[in-house]
């Protein structure tokens, strides 16, 4: 028994090493003095200097964060009220219809979302660029918020609402003094989760971005196709730090109650689908 657990520990360590090696490799070469990702010739910060001096890249970085923040804000608003609406529907099967529709975008492959949005925007005559990317990001973020807020609503004791009503609270008072404080952690988790989705997204953006506008993922794709450029490594070191901060924030919020839910929408949808409608 003892020997087996030792073997298990060894296995865990090996898999963890494999998972992290490529990431640390990427970050390590950000500090390389040379220009290639092949041999480490000495420590230098010059690739960071190049990156920060690259105004185009910095502009793209700014765009990416603006899109992420704006889309999460709107998606959180719409998604929270959507979740409230679903929660307040008293007919179980109607709830399930909405949840089913909600989950379509969660399980659809990114290419399908991207391609179908491209058709939609073209038919609507919308110019591809900042606007189309923003709308697309809002659209794929909404179901994530719904899936994170709805469980909070479901675990709330409905007697709280009735009590508030009996005590004379108006609907908007019930909402702002009873419901919103209760589901606040879910809303914040949804907000941060959608930020990371938006920052990460490549496929959907790639389809609807057009020529003039670029986000980080699309830019990395374009540069990676041309070969190795160590300022990309510097950028990845920076982004890793950002992710780390977001992970910590997200876990502070989510770990209030829920434990270890996955970040990615696939992981989230798994859990939600696994849990079913409560």
């Amino acid at each position, binding site marked *: 028994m003892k020997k087996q657990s030792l073997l298990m*520990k060894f296995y865990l360590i090996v898999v963890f090493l494999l998972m992290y090696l*490529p990431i640390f490799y*990427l970050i390590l070469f950000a500090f390389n003095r040379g220009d290639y990702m092949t041999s480490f010739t000495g420590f230098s910060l010059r690739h960071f200097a190049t990156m920060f001096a690259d105004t185009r890249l910095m502009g793209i970085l700014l765009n990416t964060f603006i899109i992420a923040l704006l889309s999460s804000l709107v998606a959180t608003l719409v998604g929270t009220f*959507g979740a409230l609406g679903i929660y307040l529907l008293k007919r179980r099967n109607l709830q399930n219809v909405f949840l089913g529709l909600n989950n379509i*975008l969660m399980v659809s492959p990114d290419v*399908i979302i991207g391609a179908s949005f491209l058709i939609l925007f073209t038919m609507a005559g919308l110019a591809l660029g900042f606007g189309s990317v923003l709308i697309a990001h809002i659209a794929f973020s909404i179901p994530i918020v719904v899936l994170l807020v709805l469980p909070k609503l479901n675990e709330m004791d409905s007697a709280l609402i009735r009590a508030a009503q009996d005590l004379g609270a108006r609907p908007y008072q019930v909402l702002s003094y009873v419901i919103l404080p209760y589901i606040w952690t879910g809303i914040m988790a949804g907000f941060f989760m959608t930020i990371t989705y938006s920052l990460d997204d490549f496929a959907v953006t790639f389809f609807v971005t057009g020529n003039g506008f670029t986000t980080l*993922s699309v830019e*990395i*794709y374009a540069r990676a196709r041309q070969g190795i450029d160590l300022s990309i490594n510097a950028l990845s070191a920076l982004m890793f730090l950002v992710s780390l901060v977001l992970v910590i924030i997200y876990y502070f919020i989510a770990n209030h109650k829920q434990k270890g839910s996955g970040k990615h929408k696939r992981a989230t949808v798994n859990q939600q689908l696994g849990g079913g409608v409560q």
Partner: protein
Amino acid sequence: MKSKQSIPYMVPYVLWIVLFVILPLLLMLIQSLQDIHQQWTLANYANFFRSGTYLKMTFNSIFYAFLVTVITLSISYPMAYGLSRVKNSQFWLLLVILPTWVNLLLKAYAFIGLLSQTGTVNQFLGFIGIGPQQLLFTDTSFILVASYIELPFMILPIFNSLVEVNPSLPNAARDLGATPWQTLRRVIFPLTLGGVRAGVQAVFIPTLSLFMLTRLIGGNRVITLGTAIEEHFLITQNWGMGSTIGIILVVAMGITMYVTRDRKKRGKR
């Protein structure tokens, strides 16, 4: 609050469902049923099923996705099992999740450096005397990198289902004289099938549609359904055919979800 009051809340959300869930898919279906002059036709589908290249591509795509699923599953189950048993498993789980927060493109980019002709792996192979080899732009490199990227998505649901197993059940099995292996195979594994199914869904469907990996790592040698869609939409501008492949992908997704659905009736509530 009564049901009626939920209506104003729902307006933007319902609008979203109509405009961005139902309408795009409908438009894609319509697009697939039309030729370039907007005439109704089944030609795209006929073309898809008659031409050997599309069918071969679909088969290849499914085969690669299957391989990636099998590889990630065989690495993930022991991993999840081990993780569910160590102390501070929530912390270790966080370490599994963290790589999924690293931008996908950056991970692919790391592998370009690792696997290139003069890359680190080839330097190592040269050092032990069997290199350099062509590693990048091969089928193997595509499978390797796709498995790497999908691994956490397989570990998470299996881990979650392992944690939910009532510990008294494996204990009972052990008391009744089952060996650890028997306990695992006869008791724990069947109880965690739900997690395995969820993991298969989470890995198989996205792998069918990965497209940037096929370009960056697979060097266009591997064509998945996703690559074909991207090509028809953004390069050859044949939206009708692209939509057709899209609809095929949606159907493939539906079949996958149906096959891996949870068969037992939920006794919840």
